[in-house]
């Protein structure tokens, strides 16, 4: 075993070195300052919204500790919620609410077949201090030629973002979507994040 000290001319001491997992910049999971500031701002501006809403997308996962990166924010809400967000933040709206359907850049991996993924929603965009905020109302997903799924619905989790309590799309919903789409790499990242916050009672206490 390596020892902590190995000074020439001094006796060797039996002190183990704990190498640990030294973080590298690419390993670090943080929400960048611009996004963080905007989430806090949204938490305040939308705190009295009538419609259900939550921070979703990759930023929502980062807030829950998932190791992903993003340059924008997403709000998941209802159709009425999308209109309400735009009403409350009129000065920041850069794309008015409208029905929108897009093809996801990533395909689903279902039963060893790669299938296109379509997303439709009542959609709007805001730009707040140069941060793009995408608002998805009653988002639905379709895989290949299947039927459209039901609008995504959820009970928000809450995280305290510095001094603001903000609703976040629960990881359970993300897990269900990732599992259904066969995005197992994303599922694994979520599993790691969830495990990091749990009390470990398994033999040996090993997480993953």
């Amino acid at each position, binding site marked *: 075993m390596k020892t902590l000290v*190995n000074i020439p001319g001094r006796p060797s001491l039996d002190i183990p070195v704990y190498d*640990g997992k030294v973080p590298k*910049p690419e390993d670090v999971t943080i929400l960048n300052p611009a996004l963080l500031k905007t989430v806090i701002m949204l938490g305040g501006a939308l705190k009295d919204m009538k419609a259900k809403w939550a921070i979703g997308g990759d930023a929502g996962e980062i807030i829950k500790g998932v190791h992903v990166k993003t340059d924008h924010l997403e709000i998941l809400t209802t159709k009425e919620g999308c209109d309400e967000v735009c009403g409350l933040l009129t000065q920041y709206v850069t794309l008015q609410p409208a029905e929108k359907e897009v093809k996801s850049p990533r395909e689903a991996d279902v039963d060893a077949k790669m299938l296109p993924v379509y997303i439709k929603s009542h959609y709007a965009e805001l730009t707040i201090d140069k941060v793009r905020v995408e608002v998805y109302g009653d988002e639905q997903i379709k895989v290949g030629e299947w039927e459209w799924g039901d609008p995504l619905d959820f009970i928000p989790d809450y995280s305290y973002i510095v*001094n603001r309590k903000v609703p976040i799309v629960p990881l359970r919903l993300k897990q269900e979507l990732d599992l259904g789409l066969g995005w197992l790499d994303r599922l694994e990242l979520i599993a790691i994040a969830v495990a990091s916050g749990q009390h470990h009672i398994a033999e040996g206490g090993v*997480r993953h």
Partner: protein
Amino acid sequence: MSTVITEPAVDVVVLGLGTMGGLVATQLAVDGYNVAGIDKGPFWDFTQDFSQTKYDEWGTTIMKKYDHPLPLFTTTMRNYSNQFALPIRRYTVSQFPANGHGVGGAAHHYSGGMGRTGAWNYTEASSTASRYGPNFLSTTVPNADLFDWPYTYTEMDPYYVTYEAAWGMSGTNMGPLVPMSQNFPLPPHPTTPLGAAFQTATEALGYSPFPVVSALASAPYMNSYGVQVNECVYDGWCSCSPCYPCETGAKANTAARAVTAGVGTGKLKLALNSYIFRINTNQSTGLATSVSYYDAAGNIHVQPGTAIFTGLWTFNQYNLLAKSGIGKQYNPTTVTGALGRGACNNGSSGTGRTVSGTLPIGYANYQAGNGAGGGFQIYDFADDAIDHTGMAQPGIGGPSLSVGSYTGNAPSDVSVAVGGTVNTIGSTWKATQKNKYIHSSTTVSLAGSGVTVPTTDLLLDLDPFYSDYYGDPLTRFTETYNNNSVGVANLITPLLQPILTKMGCTNITMGAAAVNGNSQPSSYSIHVRGGGRVGASPTYSCYNAWHQSWDVNNVFAAGELQNTTGCTVTPGTHTIGPMAYVAVDGIKQYLKSPQLLTGQP
């Protein structure tokens, strides 16, 4: 011979990556400065390193595997200058769990008890003189060495807010005696039945109880650096006494809250398992030029920097500064020099007086919880809230009182094996163990006490007889208690009895009156304060209000060594956390305009 490696120069070299150094290194990196952070221990990653802790109570509790290895260096101690100081060779002195090892430092395994330092503590000297007269303390502590801090609580409030947002503090406003411009970012932990009883009783008596403030996240959190924090799982393995680190990262320290964000900027370079042995200075410029350290392979590295910040633990920081000739060593005979001066134990240590009673609410009634949460606290007797006029024996300060926090411990802490006697085996002994682990009642104790006043005969210096593994002298601590607390204990403790009565306690017993001369410590507090104080003058302090060295202007420091006085509240971390951000502001000013800084934070 060791190989000497010169590292690329940086803006700031940060020594130690515990609470102080980790925050300073991170904030400066986030602000765009190139920073080198050096620590004698590893990077502790809670997701990898602490998941088996609770299965290794022996290693954690007895062998202190997450602590500083004492064979490398320790400290010698004595009560008076005419004694021969002896080295601490085992972890029996409670200060040593405060000597962290690795990124995050000792905060990996503290209890997480927090609480802002009240306004009075920053002005103990002038407030005492103006309220009670300049000679108030002279009969009790004739050699008091008491000074005001160079900044006030009001000036520190924004720094508290910054620190609390980074740390993710749980609690609520601490009441009228500790005004806060912003509440803590997280709500308090759920209240225990005992905490609720204390809250109800003290409210009924007109006091201002508030939930115990905690550095353990009570809810999912993202801090001001964008670092995600898991919430506490209340599984018990938490308290500082057995030194449990947190397997979910809910316990705030700079590894779990800050340093990763600094690394993420690409501006913070870490040198770990690296022992710093000198700050090098240039005699002609009077400035520090670099820091020398050993890596684990025995190589010597020289890390140049425009400014140096040391956030090392109290004794280690003193040792490095003294060895490096930064500051003039204090001489207790001539009362000159400031380095080593004013060192004293934590605020309310020393003689106290206790009143206690029994309530039929025990740990059996609530979960093991965590190391700091669930209880309630009052500051109504703290600091100078009670009028000290007319005391039989003058003294200053008063206690913060808390009741009802979780046990915070593992279900079965390790007990050292002993030979079997009638007291340690058999059915009689077993019967005593039942209530040891499943308490059905609690003895509630409240104690009056004052602050420990720094005196001119107490100090830190370099031991002339004992050296460390590297051949350098150990730090020597000359420390005892003074009689300040005696009069305060006798004044305040009788006032606390109605609280126990209101709570419904039975068997209420008033302890014997405190008396002078019985306060010599057999064990020291974890928190030692002073020895490299901040102050308004270099005659008694080493650092100015910006935590800049009076003597070597590009050296900055923060930590308990920089405390000007002892404080009422125990949580040293909450007192020093804000200092880190004052130092950051000072360093940024210095880098912009290299000179001795003036003005106030």
